């Protein structure tokens, strides 16, 4: 695909997906943002400042870690973890939060706002705001505030105002609605730091570009570690899809199998999951034309995932194109599998992964045993799991009588709804 792949087009479309579906009030500001993004980010001063902040402040490059015990335990392909969880604030989100906030700073905006689901993007944005001396408001669904309480406190301690959103499912989708309303009202002074490869142009490409450092670094590190720059398989979880795009973009032109993992929740009925490719259809939500979980009348469905960061009814438009082109495959992992993967990584490697990243890990745990020992799997450990400790303990207490972890990894009943256990197709 190298050379040919140059999306989005000048209208912000990735094939038939993407675009700019917003009220008139935002059209001129989005055009201004596009121009500023294209000009400012090419500027040497901006590039140097961003690169300095990413290395000396955020902690880049993040390590590439060969998970030896995990690999031995699963008995198949070698598993490498891209340790985005070791970044300042604990997730990949800081790449984009610093990038956009710095851009807003260069544009002369005095205030930034953001939505957050798991709280990681909110914490990253609040952090960037404190760093750059900007005012900051974070919108968060009240359900997410409950399950990610630690991050709410972190944002407040960083000086941000956290505005609870008590509408709809009280999760990420509703937080985006409210952030957009704020932006429509205060667009002259405020920049909206959208946290994923979603929304109207230029957000999907801008957020992708700020995250592509993940994959670019991994290539170099992998080459040093294994002698070859490309893995056989790369895996990442997909809520809006920013960490996945950030990892995959570097490998689009190579013979690397790419797998995105959606949240399968508790079952395949609408409202019980966030698997847009399994249960969604084309729609327009939050400014972009993409795959959306919705009813037949075009009303957006509520979603469920044990992971707040994946609990969203739409997926970034570029993912829809890349799936259509056959370049990325998508599978769903249910709540129980993700929780099992969380425990498994914690106990074999001493790493508490974010529940979002645990979905990617669960997919890897299913596939690795069926792959040749010489093969290499690269998985994006997009965030750390400290924020999820309460959720995991609560989940385990609720499901105490059903837990049989070893078995869950391969034959949990909820899993069959989504994907049959993998065969040895890859070896």
């Amino acid at each position, binding site marked *: 695909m190298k050379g040919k792949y140059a999306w989005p087009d000048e209208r912000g479309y990735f094939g038939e997906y993407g675009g700019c579906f917003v009220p008139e009030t935002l059209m001129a500001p989005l055009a201004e943002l596009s121009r500023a993004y294209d000009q400012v980010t090419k500027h040497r001063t901006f590039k140097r400042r961003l690169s300095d902040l990413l290395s000396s402040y955020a902690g880049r490059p993040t390590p590439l870690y060969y998970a030896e015990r995990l690999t031995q335990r699963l008995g198949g392909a070698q598993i490498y973890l891209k340790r985005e969880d070791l970044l300042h604030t604990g997730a990949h989100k800081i790449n984009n939060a610093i990038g956009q906030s710095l851009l807003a700073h260069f544009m002369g905006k005095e205030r930034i706002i953001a939505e957050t689901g798991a709280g990681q993007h909110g914490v990253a944005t609040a952090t960037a705001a404190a760093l750059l001396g900007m005012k900051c408001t974070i919108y968060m669904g009240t359900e997410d505030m409950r399950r990610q309480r630690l991050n709410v406190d972190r944002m407040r301690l960083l000086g941000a105002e956290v505005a609870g959103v008590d509408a709809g499912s009280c999760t990420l989708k*509703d937080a985006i609605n409210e952030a957009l309303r704020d932006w429509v009202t205060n667009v002259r002074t405020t920049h909206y730091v959208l946290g994923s490869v979603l929304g109207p142009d230029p957000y999907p490409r801008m957020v992708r570009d700020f995250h592509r450092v993940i994959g670019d670094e991994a290539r170099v590190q992998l080459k040093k570690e294994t002698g070859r720059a490309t893995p056989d398989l790369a895996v990442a979880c997909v809520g809006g899809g920013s960490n996945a795009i950030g990892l995959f973009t570097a490998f689009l032109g190579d013979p690397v199998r790419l797998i995105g993992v959606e949240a399968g929740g508790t079952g395949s009925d609408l409202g019980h999951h966030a698997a847009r490719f399994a249960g969604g259809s084309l729609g*327009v939500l939050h400014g972009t034309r993409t795959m*959306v979980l919705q009813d037949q009348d075009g009303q957006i469905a509520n979603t469920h995932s044990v992971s707040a960061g994946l609990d969203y009814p739409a997926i970034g438009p570029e993912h829809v194109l890349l799936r259509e082109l056959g370049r990325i495959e998508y599978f769903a992992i249910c709540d129980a599998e993700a929780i099992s993967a969380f425990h498994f990584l914690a106990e074999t490697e001493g790493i508490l992964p974010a529940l979002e990243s645990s979905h990617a890990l669960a997919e890897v745990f299913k596939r690795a045993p069926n792959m040749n020992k010489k093969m290499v799997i690269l998985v994006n450990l997009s965030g750390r799991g400290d924020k999820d400790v309460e959720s995991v303990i609560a989940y385990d207490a609720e499901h105490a009588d059903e837990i049989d972890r070893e078995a869950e990894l391969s034959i949990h009943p909820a899993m069959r709804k989504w994907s049959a256990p993998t065969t040895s197709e890859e070896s």
Partner: protein
Amino acid sequence: MTPIEEAFARCAAEKRSAFVPFIMAGDPDLATTPRLLEALVAGGADIIELGVPFSDPIADGPVNQRAATRALAAGTHLGEILRMVARHRDRLDVPIVLFTYFNPIHALGIRRFAEQAAASGLDGVLCVDLPPEEAEAEYLPVMREHGLDTIFLLAPTSTKDRVKRVAQVTTGFAYYVSRTGVTGEQETLPSELRKTVKRLRRRLPVPLVVGFGVSSREQVVEIGKAAQGVVVGSALVRLIEEEGRARDLPAKLEAAVRKLTGQPKGSEVGAQ
């Protein structure tokens, strides 16, 4: 002349601006909506904006959001709204314009939507999150083909180029959002509003209607001096929210509209 053009011509002849009330279809339920539409007409509406409830109304403030939530909870959807309009169109002697988000139209299919909307007797559609750029490929030609007006928004952030672009595609009228922000009542109106409206009118081939934040007779009169039409939405939606269960809701709505249009009290409808 289309019914919308006729409405503006009549208002111009009477040397006043058009009064354009907004209510949400299906709030409190779709069975009540026709009676509320009749009350709007009786109170002096010149054109009606009928809202289609959407689960994620990013351009609406809390009052209209709650109205959408109530309407959806009552089972309202676009297809039913169009059938309701078709059944009652004859008794409503004013143009009706649908005010909607794009996804319900996208789900129904643009062509099917246009066919059903035209058959129902609707006069035009304002799709808040469909800017001209996204409308040009399919929406505009299909709507034209079915004789439906396509109303577009203008905002304080609209640049000269954007005004030009909107002027090329908006038919029936253009809707100026009088401040940056979501729908909802405002106590004060932006001072530069009259100047802006005058400037915009010179660049538009169709009448200009002003909305977002208008809630009193004084504001209606004030804006009416500059614009050819004034929209009042949230203030009426709030009344429906507060009196939704009252049996005399249509009479109350009519009285509220009379206050806004400054029409003397005539015969009450649906009071008993």
